[in-house]
Every structure is written in structure tokens, then in C-alpha cells.
């Protein structure tokens, strides 16, 4: 029980292990869009590689392809037709990987590592949105060396999400900026942060009835998630909750871990969080309850994703640097696990 090191097993939740996992920590995890009949899972990792697996109905994963860049990968995004994958790297570029030809070509550039990339599909245009530590947000049509739009951020980008017609970027110094993508991308408003610590992850959620994006969930390094509506009907709609804080240990200190990623279930509108503490949790933000919390793994969880119909929950296990470089153990294997999650994420019926 109090065995501090290596006590937790690597797969205590009995989930399906993805074969041939990345050699270093996973920094991005995305399932293929609904336009593809099969399900593919793509990961970007600190070993500078982007890997693609096909996930069969049985849960079996088949490695399909791999692509590499000159620096560690910080984000990946699918093209809406599923034919291409965008890869953002610390090498300050974003490449477009055409899966059919297995060619990767540069489609975006920044003056600093590119933290996020998102494919935007609007009725009247498509483009790639990239945000970087160079404090800019850029929009690219992928065929031109110059961005079609270039916007300044208040700080370095730490996280971003896109759900047409909304985009949101979280930055260092606790900045949040909302963008409207209707017609063309434009800044909508800057929002005061509901959180008091460094932003780490952000995810847009939709209104239950209209199915339109209506707010976002923001996670910080202080084990806390804020649910924030763009235009709350009632100020009480916005709230924050704590997570990824295991009970105090024998030293009397409570350890507070970063929320590493947030994902909303595409069908239920409930959400999953993964944390540096090595656990994931499912939440119902409307009932303000936790639906499930996982067993503790022996390494942090860095990323998570739902597939497009919400049947599969994928999460990545690997060291996230939260205890500094000296706690990095290269001998420890990285994992990606898959879990059938549809039932677990059903909202609480009250």
C-alpha cells in the first residue's frame, strides 16, 4: 500500500494495449474522422514520430504507418476527409502527411515550436490553424508559403481547440482568446481565466440541444478544470472542479497534479480528463458528478481521445516531465490503451 515506487501496475484498468507503442512520451492522440469507414488512431510523440494504427472492431491494433519530423511532435490533426494528417513540431514547422502517397510536405512555419494544429472545415473555406510559442496564431491554406491570416496572441500558446464555428486558444500567463470562424477567422473576445494556474489543456463542448459549440473546459496544472460558457445564461453555469489530486499521503501533503488533457464524448457530451497523477476520470458536467475514476497507473497520462462515435476511449501513458527531467526513466515503456467507454460515459440520469 505505501510502497511508493513502482507499486502501481502498468495496466490496472485492464484495457487493450496498442501494439508497437511510441518510443517516447505521447504528445498528441487523435482518432480518424467519421469520413473514413475504418478507425485509425494517430499519435505524435517526443521521439519525433507520428504513428498510425488501424483499430479493428475487435480492439486489435495494426500498425500502419509512421512518419517523422526534425523535432518532437507537439500536436497532430486529421484532415476532415481522413486522407491527411497534420503534424506540428518543435522544429517550428507543420507538415502535411498525405497517407496515400506517404509523403510529408511542410505547410506551415512559425518562429518557435508549433504547439497546436487544427484543421478547420467551414462551409465556405478550409484551412489549417496553427498556434505557436512565438505568440502567433496563423491560418494556412496549405498551398501557400504565407499564411492567409496571422493573429497575435497575448502569450505563448499552450493549448487550443477548434469546433466550427468556434476556436479557442489558451496561452501562458493565463490568457484565453475565443475566435469565430464563420465567414473567415476572426478574434471574438478575450476571456478572463477562471483558473489561477497555468493553462494546460482546453476542449470545446456543445450545447446539448442545439449541438452548437457553446463553451469550453479548461484544465490547469493545479488539478482543476473550469467549465466555462461563452455566454452563460446564468452566471452560475460556469464553475470549476478539482481533479487529479490523490488523497494526502503520509507526509501530510496533498499532491496536486496537472490536468494533462480533456476530451468530450461526441455522443453524450460528458467529458474525460487525464492527469499527471496517472489516472483518468469521466465526468458529467451538467450533473456535476464524476461518472468514473480509473485505477492509478504508474506513470502520468498525457493525452486522451474519443473516436468519432464515442465507442473507444484512448489514453496515452508516459512521463510528462512534471517532476523534472531527473525523474525521466528512459527504460520505462510508453503505452497507449484503448477502452470501450460508451456505457461509462452515459450521463447520470437524474
Amino acid at each position: 500500500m505505501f510502497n511508493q515506487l513502482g507499486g502501481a501496475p502498468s495496466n490496472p484498468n485492464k484495457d487493450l494495449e496498442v501494439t508497437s507503442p511510441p518510443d517516447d512520451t505521447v504528445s498528441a492522440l487523435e482518432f480518424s474522422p467519421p469520413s473514413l469507414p475504418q478507425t485509425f488512431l494517430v499519435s505524435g510523440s517526443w521521439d519525433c514520430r507520428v504513428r498510425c494504427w488501424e483499430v479493428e472492431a475487435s480492439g486489435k491494433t495494426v500498425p500502419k504507418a509512421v512518419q517523422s519530423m526534425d523535432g518532437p511532435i507537439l500536436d497532430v490533426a486529421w484532415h476532415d476527409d481522413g486522407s491527411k494528417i497534420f503534424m506540428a513540431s518543435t522544429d517550428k514547422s507543420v507538415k502535411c502527411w498525405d497517407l496515400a502517397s506517404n509523403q510529408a510536405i511542410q505547410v506551415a512555419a512559425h518562429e518557435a515550436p508549433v504547439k497546436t494544429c487544427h484543421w478547420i472545415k467551414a462551409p465556405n473555406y478550409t484551412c489549417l490553424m496553427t498556434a505557436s510559442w512565438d505568440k502567433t496564431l496563423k491560418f494556412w491554406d496549405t498551398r501557400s508559403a504565407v499564411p492567409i491570416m496571422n493573429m497575435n496572441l497575448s502569450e505563448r500558446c499552450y493549448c487550443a481547440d477548434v469546433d466550427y464555428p468556434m476556436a479557442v486558444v489558451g496561452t501562458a500567463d493565463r490568457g484565453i482568446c475565443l475566435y469565430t470562424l464563420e465567414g473567415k477567422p476572426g478574434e471574438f473576445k478575450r476571456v478572463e481565466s477562471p483558473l489561477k494556474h497555468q493553462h494546460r489543456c482546453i476542449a470545446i463542448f456543445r450545447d446539448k440541444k442545439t449541438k452548437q459549440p457553446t463553451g469550453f473546459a479548461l484544465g490547469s496544472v493545479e488539478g482543476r478544470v473550469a467549465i466555462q460558457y461563452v455566454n452563460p445564461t446564468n452566471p452560475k453555469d460556469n464553475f470549476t472542479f478539482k481533479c487529479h489530486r490523490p488523497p494526502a499521503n503520509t507526509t501530510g501533503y496533498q499532491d496536486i497534479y496537472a490536468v494533462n488533457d480533456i476530451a468530450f464524448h461526441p455522443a453524450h457530451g460528458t467529458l474525460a480528463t487525464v492527469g499527471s497523477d496517472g489516472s483518468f476520470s469521466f465526468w458529467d458536467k451538467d450533473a456535476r458528478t464524476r461518472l468514473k475514476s480509473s485505477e492509478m497507473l504508474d506513470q502520468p497520462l498525457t493525452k486522451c481521445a474519443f473516436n468519432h462515435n464515442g465507442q473507444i476511449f484512448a489514453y496515452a501513458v508516459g512521463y510528462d516531465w512534471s517532476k523534472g527531467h531527473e525523474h525521466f526513466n528512459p527504460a520505462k515503456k510508453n503505452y497507449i490503451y484503448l477502452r470501450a467507454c460508451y456505457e461509462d460515459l452515459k450521463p447520470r440520469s437524474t
Partner: protein
Amino acid sequence: MGRKKKKASKPWCWYCNREFDDEKILIQHQKAKHFKCHICHKKLYTGPGLSIHCMQVHKEAIDKVPNSLPNRSNIEIEIYGMEGIPPEDMKEHEKQKSGGGKGDEDSDDDEPAAKKKATPALLGPGPSQVTQGILPTPMGPVPPGMYPGHMQMQMMPPFMQAPRMMMPGMRPLFPAASMPPTSTSKPTFPAYSMYSGSNTTTTYYSNATISAPPTTTTPSSSSEHKENGEVKPPAANACPLVTATGAGSKIIHPPEDVSLEEIRARSAKYRAKPKADAPAAQPQPAPAMITPSTSQAEVAAHMNAAVAAARQQQAAAALRRGVLNSMGGMGSMGGMGSMGAMGGMVGMLPPQGMVPRVPVPHVPVSVPQMPPVVPMLPVMPQFNLVRQLQPGMLLPGGMMPMGAMFPSGMVMQPRYR
């Protein structure tokens, strides 16, 4: 913005850095939290008083003031309310208050239990579960003095009242809910009205209600970030640190308030490989990177010098121009059809590791200096969690005892319902 008025003169507790509206309440707090005998629960008046009491009555020596911050646990110092606070700590506190204490803001973790209790209906319909002193969790009772900071899904009342920043003439983007909020700002708990009142606007640079953390951040090192035109944190960000102000908790994160990815990307192992067509980009950041004086290197190891960036961008542009020619009809390429071919085209990969791993030698932390040609750079020492005192980084060493790496076993998080 609106909340800066009153903060200068608020009484605060030397032991835990908490602020109070009233010195009387502060004294009550100190008696209850810091001067209470853990054996007979008698409330004493000062630290030495407690120590003498325990020694004489219970024959027990107390070496630390209960529930105090690690560097404020001295039981010898006689402090009563605001009296007896060492002048340097007083000054330090003032500085924290006036200088951008941003990022130091406390979470509501260590709000008094009473206040939490008073926050209405946090968890939907059932506001009842919280019994003071007992956590609504399966964890059993709180060790004495632990702040009951475990409530999940705790509402943060202050934020609800944050003013909207609707720009005039802007139409609502997301029609789902376009009603502007009605602002209701009534303090939930009168005794703490200044609290919540001052909390209502959480500005970016606003200061903490509960004051700064024990870690001393001095603005001095802020001005000198910056060499080779790298992106520097803004002034308000002076020496941002990630610290939990709650005396009973610590945030598992490197001390710098910089994202884990940025910190990681700085380390030698993860530097981007020099590009074939932009070889100039690599060498020059090296010297800057090795300097052990932490704060300059701050943000930007990865963000190569702006100089280099400019050059590199040219190169990149050239590269792309070349590439674009060959890319002609990309837009028209059929997605679905080509995807089907993917499996065949790319082929199955060997099961053991899809790609051979590039061996990376492990660089010892203490490597003093390396010639810039070597692509591996020593890992900078300031990532040490157990901080060492370093120039430009005024931190009480070993502030946060590193506890368990991973609390093992099955750790259930508390349920709040």
C-alpha cells in the same frame, strides 16, 4: 482591477500566508490552527507558549508550529496576530502584494471550512453533504490541521461574478446561449465579505486574496530575461512560479511557470535536428543555453534566436516553394479512395518498434560546458524539483519535500455525491 484597493493593509498570518479582514479573526485563526495543542487541544497564544505548554504539561517537545508553511514553522518566534512578524518578512509580504503577485493567487483550496460550507448548493440539488471537519469522502477524517481541500466539483463563486467583456457592436457568436449574465455579487458569508468582494474580478494581474506563497519571488531577475531576442515573458510575469499556496498541498510541477513541453523541449535530447537546408539555425543558441543562471534561459531554449528564425524562415520558404511545385493538385486528390490504399502502400511495419530508435546518450546533469557544435546540450539544472539556490532564483532550498513519486495502490478519488 477593481480589487486592488484594500489589499495593502490586510492582516495576514505569518505561519501560512493567509490574509484576513480583521486582526481579531487572524488571532482566532492562529489560535485554532497554529497554537493549538495537538494532545489536549488547548489553544495557546503564541508559538513559544505552545512549545512550553507541551513540554511542561505533556512532556513533549514540539519543533514546528502546526500547519505552518515549511519555512515559517519556527516555534521560537513569538508572533501574535500581526505582532512580532520579522521585518524582512513584512517587507517581503508587502512586495508580494504590490509587485505582480500574479500566478501566486491561491486557489480556494484553503479557504476556511466554514466558508466552504456556506457556499450554497455546489453540487446540484444536494448542498447537504459537507459536514465540517469531515470530508465527504471515503478517506476518513482529515488529519488535524489539514485543510479540507478535497471537495470535488467545488464551485468557485467568485468567478461567476466576473464581468463579461462583451465588446460593443459584436454579435454573439454562439447563439446557443447569448444572454448576458446578470451580475449578482452578494457575499455568501459576511465575515469574509471582503474576500469574495475583492475576488469578483479576477484580472490577469490581480493579486492574491490569500497572499503570496512562501517561495520568495523577487522581481529582480525579471528584467534580464533576454538574450538573442528570444521571446520573453511579459513584465507582469516577472518570475512566475508554480506554487500551491495551500499549506497542505503541493503542485507536482517544476517550479517555473512554464509549460512542461517548453521545459522538456529545452533539454538536449529533444532539440530539433538541424535542418539540412538551414544549418545556421543551430549553433548560436548553444552558449545561451548552457548558462546555468536559470531565468534568462526561461522560456526559450527551443525558440531559437529570432535571428536564426528569420534565416530559417527564408530557408523554409524556399523549401516550400520547391515542394509546392510538386504538389500541384493536392486539393483535388480524392481522400477516401486514396486512404484505402494506405495500408498497402505503406505496408505493415515490423511489430517490434515501428522504427529503430535513435540512440541518445544520456547526458549527465553536471556537464559543465560543451562546444556548441555538439548537438547535445547539458540538461539545465534548474529543473530540479528539489530546488537549489541559484543566482536569479531566490528560493528557499528544498521547500517542497519530495514525497511519494506515485502514491501507489488503489487510490480512490473522493466522490462528491
